[in-house]
């Protein structure tokens, strides 16, 4: 096919040469010339560059992958290429067992938060040309790795569910005679940023406290609660109920304002600010009863 595509080599597993041979998808790559999308090839020639990525590999079932290692891939560069594009290319052209979640390719589904060059980022929202090479791509820290870049998200979902993330008004009348509720534009503006969360888990993964205390609700869940607590459409009693969930032992107080969550959030949600505001709300609420 072409010279710029050095074959991907399995790097950090020298003890087991057999495995290396088995894993190296070089053979497929050579014969699989037909797979290359014409555009990609043309542009790669135009730009004549490849991007070097190192991808974390692990699979509990496959010999040689049980001990995690990094695989190197050299992917032809295209203008506008994102980290997700690069791993997709590596998967489709070099090694079809390379596994990661992805779907929308436009930063709305929240599936592809990876640990890229030491920071939690959405693969699809990160231009590879902005990164230093080799680009190191790992699964999100602080979550168990299921396979390659796929981590177990169950705990994250559990935490999200803990804050009762739903409107609680019980009185939803029959559809026919529903009256639209009013909400001021200011109030809607207040909850706007918090409502953008796409459940990618980057924030939770970046938070040291969440890493140490598994029960800590974590920035995403607290932010979710913020969205409801600040929405004027829910009444005061429910807000208090929400604050009580938040101020328990493993709630807002756990946050040590490390700001990592805010820094990595791909949706630019001011998480720390929201958490701090809820702390103040909780204190205010309690002061009232003194």
């Amino acid at each position, binding site marked *: 096919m072409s010279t710029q595509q050095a074959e991907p080599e399995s790097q950090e597993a020298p003890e087991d040469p057999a495995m290396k041979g088995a894993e190296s998808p070089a053979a497929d790559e050579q014969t*699989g010339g037909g*797979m290359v*999308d014409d*555009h990609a090839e043309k542009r790669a020639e135009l730009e004549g560059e490849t991007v070097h990525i190192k991808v974390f590999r692990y*699979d*509990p*079932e*496959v010999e040689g992958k049980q001990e995690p290692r990094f695989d190197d891939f050299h992917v032809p560069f*295209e*203008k*506008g*290429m*994102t980290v997700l*594009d690069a791993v997709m290319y590596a*998967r*489709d*052209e070099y*090694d*079809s*067992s390379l*596994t*990661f979640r992805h*779907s*929308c*390719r*436009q930063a*709305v*589904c*929240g*599936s592809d938060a990876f640990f890229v060059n030491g920071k939690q980022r959405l693969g*699809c929202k*990160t*231009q590879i040309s902005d990164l230093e090479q080799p680009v190191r791509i790992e699964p999100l820290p602080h979550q168990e790795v*299921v396979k390659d870049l796929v981590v177990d*998200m169950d705990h994250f979902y559990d935490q999200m*569910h803990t804050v*009762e*993330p*739903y*409107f*609680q*008004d019980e009185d*939803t009348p029959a*559809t*026919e005679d*529903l009256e*639209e*509720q*009013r*909400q*001021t*534009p200011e109030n*809607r503006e207040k909850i706007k940023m918090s*409502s*953008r969360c*796409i*459940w990618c888990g980057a924030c939770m993964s970046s938070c040291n406290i969440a890493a140490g205390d598994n029960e800590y609700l974590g920035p995403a869940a607290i932010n979710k609660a913020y*969205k*409801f607590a600040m*929405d004027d459409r829910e009444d005061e009693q429910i807000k208090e109920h929400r604050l009580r969930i938040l101020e328990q032992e493993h709630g807002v107080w756990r946050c040590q304002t490390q700001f990592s969550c805010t820094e990595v959030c791909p949706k630019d949600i001011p998480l720390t600010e929201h958490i701090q505001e809820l702390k103040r709300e909780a204190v205010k609420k309690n002061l009232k009863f003194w």
Partner: protein
Amino acid sequence: MYEHDVIVVGAGGAGLRAAIAAHEAGADVAMVSKLHPVRSHTGAAEGGINAALQEGDDWELHAYDTMKGSDYLGDAPAVETLAKNSPEETINLEHWGMPFSREEDGTVSQRPFGGLSYPRTTYAGAETGHHLLHTMYEQVVKRGIQVYDEWYVMNLATTDEADPNDRECHGVVAYDVQSGNIEGFKANQGVVLATGGPGQAFDHTTNAVSCTGDGHAMAYRAGAPLEDMEFIQFHPTSLPSTGVLISEGVRGEGGILYNSEGERFMFEHGYANNSGELASRDVVARAELTEVDEGRGVEDEYVHLDMRHLGEERIMDRLENILHLAEDFEGVDGLVEPMPVKPGQHYAMGGIEVDENGQTCVNGLYAAGECACVSVHGGNRLGGNALPELIVFGKRAGRHAAGEDLGDPEIRTGYGDDVEDETETDLPVTPGDAGVDTSGGVAADGGVTADAEGVLERTVETARQRVDRLMDKEDGVQHAEIRAKLQKAMTDYVNVFRTEEGVKKALRLIRECRQEYQDVYVDDPSRTFNTDLQQTIETRNLIDVAETIALGALVRDEFRGAHWRKEHQERKDEEWLKHTLISWDDGEPSIFYRPVILEGENKTYEPKERSY
């Protein structure tokens, strides 16, 4: 084996709404989805939800606009149901907490949208779909509805009577992506398919990687016809490298399209002398491709959308998110350079044929959302009409599946005495046939005539064998190669421009893909989170779906809505006021037509020239 009353396949907007409705109707519901619900592609919708909420607007106007937009291929009972129910469903969402944008007086905001005679598009910033999806998922959590997420549904467990109208669907077979276990899900009352669009049949699409038309293909192979598949909407401004959508708002604000020669081609080449860049989606998409085809495209691929002249202030004020999109997904700064854009597949108007209650001709099998075709969108969907479809028809499907009486449907489904067979068109290949022995038609999908459990067990067994076969095979072709070929064929020949020769060529290429697929294998030996396996199965579905799109495009020799044929550039109302239906008849698809219903509740919609 798992057992529930109602099984909802897919957890996008339509699936979630159906599950909530079925739950409220008292059924024990479970959702089975290959993605966690919040990852569904409904989250990508930006524009809004059409609903006649305001004084001065009413559902009849909405119905009229929709019918006109559909180029008179929408069925009036469906269109009217949509328009009538959309307001209350939208308000219902509001009660569930959806953060709609607001006016000063606290009411929800509505904005004008293409093809609407009244500003009735209700929105939540530029992320309406995201909020709709999350709000409904929240309600699912509230109700404690069981969600099997990251379970990939492979097959429907359907009996195999000769006539699909006599068949019964008893459940689905799915595999747990994380562990690779294959299990049956028995549905005592009904299965609702809500698997979304088939955009991945094209290589350039605004749809997600997960939009592989699985529901279409499963229903199709179970005997439910696919309707109007040839109607595919292409959006004129998507980013070339990813297909990410650049909203119409840019052109609305005054953005200009240029070709590689720096000409404002919409005017200079006379595509739309009045409205220029703001002509309707299909017109602009065709203009762009003509420019590229005639050698005036940038890098032979795209054109430029320039908004620099609007000034930084205005751009930051109204189009800020566009700057982010161009920067994040294309590496282009919209303030200093024009943005590359090209047409991308965006929406499938057609889908699994259902009636107003969401039911297909197979008993107990329902479909809702983009995978279904009721048909509200006919030949062309208006922006902002898909989301209301999800909530209105998702709800109806859910309730009906849970046993509620919604009255008799006016729309008929399946092969019957009101259809007309296709006889004229000469097909270049035998559809559905791989040219090799693949005995077994429906039975290939595991159906038998037996009790529900028997049907399910047989289907599970077949699915296990199929997966074992794919996994055990040592070498052959990989799905990525077939998929790329298929997507390329569709994009080259069944795209915005369609010629008879081209579509025939596509059908032959699809046939080749089908043959190559006989030799497909899964390289990844692991059962754990094997996306290689999942994509291999999806590719098979894409082949089936792509074929129906191409077949529809070939038989419909007219120009209606989004479907344009080089040799037939006019709308032929005498001949073509009818739906194209394709059904998988023992592996040899048959094509037939059902007349469109233009008689509404109070009036009959007379086909008029579609001009704006």
